[in-house]
Structure formats: structure tokens, C-alpha cells
């Protein structure tokens, strides 16, 4: 998103031409080196690894060309995890950004106890991942979980407690819910801050023009929010794609691969099947997918900004 923001922001208007400026390069260089050492070089190593056979206990690393990619395209579990990843991404983006937007709209109202409500509603952001998994794991326990009390109250015809996270059809919605529970406050906070920075004059002008509240939201608030919403969309996509701990510790990718995203699949292939090169191959493919999605977003945003009269 840095790029998206960086590319698009209209910064200084063309001022007087200055002599060549080295400061930005001096500032950027340490970061480029830093990210290079810790992330970009390792990822390049992984990229090369995807053209080798590198399986623990199966002899030395050999060059195998495109074998891993051939295997991947024929592997139905790869396509499964691609599908699972997209479902998880779309689900989390919609639920977390949607809940974030709704919570921001609520918190933008004036009401008694607003600051307490803001603290409570954004608390999950501060709540660490591991305890989050633990508590939902316990709430959703088939035998003793408190969720059964609510479920039986709302759906009195239930004969048995549902299996919750170990039910093939419920696992994904629940994992999406947990991920969104943890993530939505951040989006809510950002959106709230945008709303609070919209100048009052705009609303006053709208009211003078006879706009209803609904119209004020439609024609004043929403246009101001859209760039941020798109940015949040990209962010949520990326975070959902990277999500590991919440899924891995709650369902382990199961049951029957129902929540096995690409990242879980990469991890399992590399660390449970010890096929490091094939894991790297799936990782490269996943990276390509998320990169394409991000570029699409960036493109949309650019066009939208251009349309807005940039």
C-alpha cells in the first residue's frame, strides 16, 4: 500500500527546479539494504529453490527445472488451497472491513459512553493472536463450549451440539469470524479517523442544499471514505493472505483441508512433509496471486483518482 499511496499522492506542485537531490536516496538506501537482507534475498533463494528437488533425507539438492510446477498444476490440493485462500480472503475482507466501517459509523455518533464503547469495540486489536485462538477454541468446544448455550437458545431444535471448528462446513466461516474479530478494529479506527477529519462545512453545505442524512452520507461521507476503503481492502487482502497463526493453531488447516490456505499448505509441505522445494513452489504461486490482486487494486485506485479529477 505504500506504493499505492506513494505513486498516487500528489505531493509538491512543480516548484522551481532544484539541483539533483540525494537525500531521499540516502534515506531509502538503508531500508532497501535492510529489507533486502531480511526478506528479498531469502525470497529469491526460495524462488530458485522452486526449480530444484530439495527433500530432507532424499539425497542432495538437484536441479529439476519445471517439475515442481508441473506437479503443482496437477495437484488438486493446490487448487483446493487456492480456492480456500480466495474464500478466506474475500470473507475476511468483507467481514472485517464491513464491521470496521459499521463500527466507525457508530463511533462517529455522539452518544453517552462513547469513549468507553470505543475502547471496548477496538479491544480485540490489542488482544494478541495466541490468546485469541485459545479463547475461541474454548468457546467453540463441542462439549463444554459456551457457544452451545447460545446456539441451543437460538436454535432450540438442535439435537446435538454442532462440531463447530471441526465441522467441514462451519470451519471456514468460524475461522473468518475469528480473523475478522481480531482485525476489524484497525480498519474501524482508520475509517473513524477519516470521518472525523471530514470538514463540517461540507455537511453544513449539504444540509443547506436540503440533503437528508442518508444523502449526506451518500454524497459527502462515502466519497471521502472510498480511497481509504480501497486501501483497507488491499491491506485486508494482504493480511488475510499472510494469516498463519490464527488458522494454524485453531484448525491446523482441517478438517479435511477445509481451511488449508496457501500459507498453511506451504508450511505443511515444507515442515510436515519436508519437501522444501515444493513448498517454495506453492509459495511462489501464492505470491503471484496476491501480487496480481494488489496490482489490480492499485490500478483501480489510480483510475478512480483520475476520475475524481486528479
Amino acid at each position: 500500500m505504500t506504493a499505492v499511496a506513494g505513486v498516487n499522492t500528489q505531493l509538491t506542485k512543480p516548484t522551481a527546479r532544484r539541483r539533483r537531490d540525494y537525500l531521499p536516496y540516502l534515506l531509502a538506501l538503508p531500508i532497501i539494504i535492510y529489507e533486502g537482507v531480511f526478506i528479498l534475498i531469502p525470497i529469491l533463494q526460495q524462488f530458485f529453490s522452486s526449480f530444484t528437488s530439495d527433500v530432507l533425507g532424499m539425497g542432495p539438492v538437484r536441479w529439476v527445472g519445471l517439475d515442481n510446477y508441473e506437479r503443482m498444476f496437477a495437484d488438486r490440493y493446490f487448487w483446493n488451497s487456492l480456492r480456500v485462500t480466495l474464500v478466506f480472503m474475500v470473507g475476511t475482507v468483507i467481514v472485517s472491513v464491513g464491521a470496521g466501517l459499521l463500527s466507525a459509523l457508530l463511533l462517529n455518533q455522539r452518544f453517552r459512553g462513547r469513549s468507553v464503547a470505543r475502547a471496548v469495540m477496538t479491544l480485540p486489536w490489542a488482544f494478541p493472536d495466541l490468546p485469541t485462538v485459545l479463547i475461541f477454541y474454548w468457546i467453540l468446544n463441542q462439549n463444554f463450549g459456551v457457544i452451545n448455550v447460545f446456539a441451543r437458545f437460538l436454535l432450540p431444535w438442535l439435537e446435538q451440539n454442532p462440531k463447530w471448528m471441526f465441522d467441514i462446513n462451519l470451519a471456514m466461516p468460524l475461522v473468518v469470524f475469528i480473523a475478522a474479530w481480531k482485525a476489524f478494529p484497525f480498519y474501524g479506527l482508520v475509517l473513524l479517523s477519516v470521518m472525523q477529519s471530514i470538514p463540517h462545512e461540507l455537511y453544513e453545505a449539504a444540509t443547506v442544499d436540503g440533503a437528508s442524512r442518508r444523502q449526506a452520507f451518500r454524497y459527502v461521507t462515502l466519497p471521502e471514505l472510498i480511497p481509504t476503503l480501497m486501501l483497507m481492502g488491499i491491506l485486508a487482502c494482504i493480511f488475510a493472505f499472510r494469516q498463519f497463526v490464527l488458522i494454524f493453531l485453531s484448525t491446523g488447516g482441517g478438517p479435511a483441508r477445509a481451511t488449508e490456505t496457501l500459507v498453511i499448505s506451504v508450511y505443511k509441505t515444507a515442515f510436515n512433509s519436508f519437501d522444501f522445494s515444493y513448498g517454495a513452489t506453492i509459495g511462489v504461486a501464492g505470491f503471484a496471486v496476491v501480487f496480481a490482486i494488489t496490482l489490480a487494486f492499485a490500478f483501480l485506485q489510480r483510475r478512480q483518482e483520475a476520475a475524481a479529477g486528479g
Partner: protein
Amino acid sequence: MEKTISTSAAASPKPHRYRWLERIPLYVLVLMFCLVTAFPIYWMIVSVVQPVNLSLQYPPPLFPQAIDLKVFGEIFSGRESVGRVDIWIGNSLVLATLTTVFSLVLSIFGAYALAGRRWRGQGLFGLMLLMTQMLPEALIVIPLYATIDQLKLKDSFLTLALVDTAFVLPICIWILKNVFDTIPNEIRDAALVDGCNRIGMLWRIMLPIAAPGLVAVGVVAFFHAWNEYLFASSLISSRTMYTAPVGLGSMISMIDTPIDKLLGGGLVFSIFPVIFYLLVQRYVVAGLSAGAVKG
């Protein structure tokens, strides 16, 4: 519901008593949100403070039927093999502090480079940061582990903090860059005319204005390091150097850790970031707010 979606500024012409009625949906929604966010945390506390056998029944009582705090004694100083949550949390504090400091310093560099005048390669720099943000940790851990092992840099919080910073830095730069963007060019130009060099301007003018943004960056970096599991578990092998997530993870993977102890450890582990967040909450909103204006 649309009714509630109005702006605080818009004055309602309706009589007072109707306004109260109108606000019921708002309160109901707020209450529902609060229930969804607070109930799991409440439930965690209930399950920790009551004896575990009360939790292991159906239906579970919605309010604690008895209070038994011995679980805290066990996780803090009980048998060594249960693990020492206090030591792990101390380690996590060290790690999170280091990560926060690194992230702050480096994100100031990066944000200033991105927020200033256009320069050749700026877009590319942004793209590089975006790419690093997109990569899942699971993809990096093998090659990175190999390198760090060869350099004999394992079992060090410094190394781990550097790795964590690499992953959280892009979003920190993004937040701070947006804050810098909101500072009007006139202020910068005026400072330059007054004879400040640009480093001086950054230090004396921009950073003070961007203080809430710095807080937001600090919180994001702190949370990241506090949560990070994959690298912490592979780059630290000495048990006394476990960070809290790894320690808790090791409790999960022990064959007999009962749920109350796990939840107790999780609760203690959550206290620091929650308190930290509540303390600086106000500034976080302000910091994101400043940054979000331009989007």
C-alpha cells in the same frame, strides 16, 4: 439503521423526545458490537478464575460459581516444566521494545523519503516495500534460518527484533508517510527559508507535528513483535529465552496442559498490550487520523 448513520454535526430539527427514540437502534448496535468484542475476553477471565472442573461441564455457568486463583500461582512459579510465564513475558517485553525502537527509527527514514519531493525511483521504492509486506513469513523462514544460523546469530533478541522489524516496517512507513503528507508544504518551505537544513526541519518541525503518528507506529510495531510466533519459535531454542507466544505455544503442545492453565497464561500475556493500548488509544486514533486524511 440509516437514521443512525448521520454525522454528529448535522443538527436534528425534531423534538427532543423523538430523538431519544431514534437513538435506540444506535445503542442496540453499539451494545451488540461491544458484546461480540468483550464477551470472549470476559469468558476467558471466567474460565481462568473458576476451578477447572466447573468449566468442564455442560451447560457451563455464565457467571463464575467459585473463585480459585491457584492457576496463577502455577503458571508463575510452579513446576519448572510447566513453564515460567513471567520470564517469557519479560523476554517479550525486551523484544517488543527493541522492535518498536528499530521500527520508529527506520520508518522515519522511509516515510521522509516517500513523503518529500518526487525522486526518480520513488515508485520503485514504494513497490519494493509493498512486496515485502505481501510475503508470508512461512516462505521466508527456511532460508532466513539458514543464513542466521551460519552467522551464529541465533538465540538473540537483537536478531529477532531485526527480523520482526523487517516485516512490520512497510506498514509503519505507510502510516508515517501519510502523517508527513498532511504537513503543509508551506510549513516545510518556511522552515527551509529560515535556514533550517532538511534534517533539522525533520527533527524540529515535522516529528513534533507527527507525534501521534509515531505513537501509532509504535503500537503497531509493538503488537507485531508481541504476537510473532514463527520466527520466534525457530530462531530461539533456549527455553529461558522463549518469548511469550512461543512459551504459550509450548504449553499448548505439552500433552497435559489443562485448559485453565492455558487460558491463564493467555490472559496474563494479553494484559500488557491491552493496558498499553488503552493508555495510548487517544493518540493512536489521532495518529491514524492525521495519516488518513489523504488516504
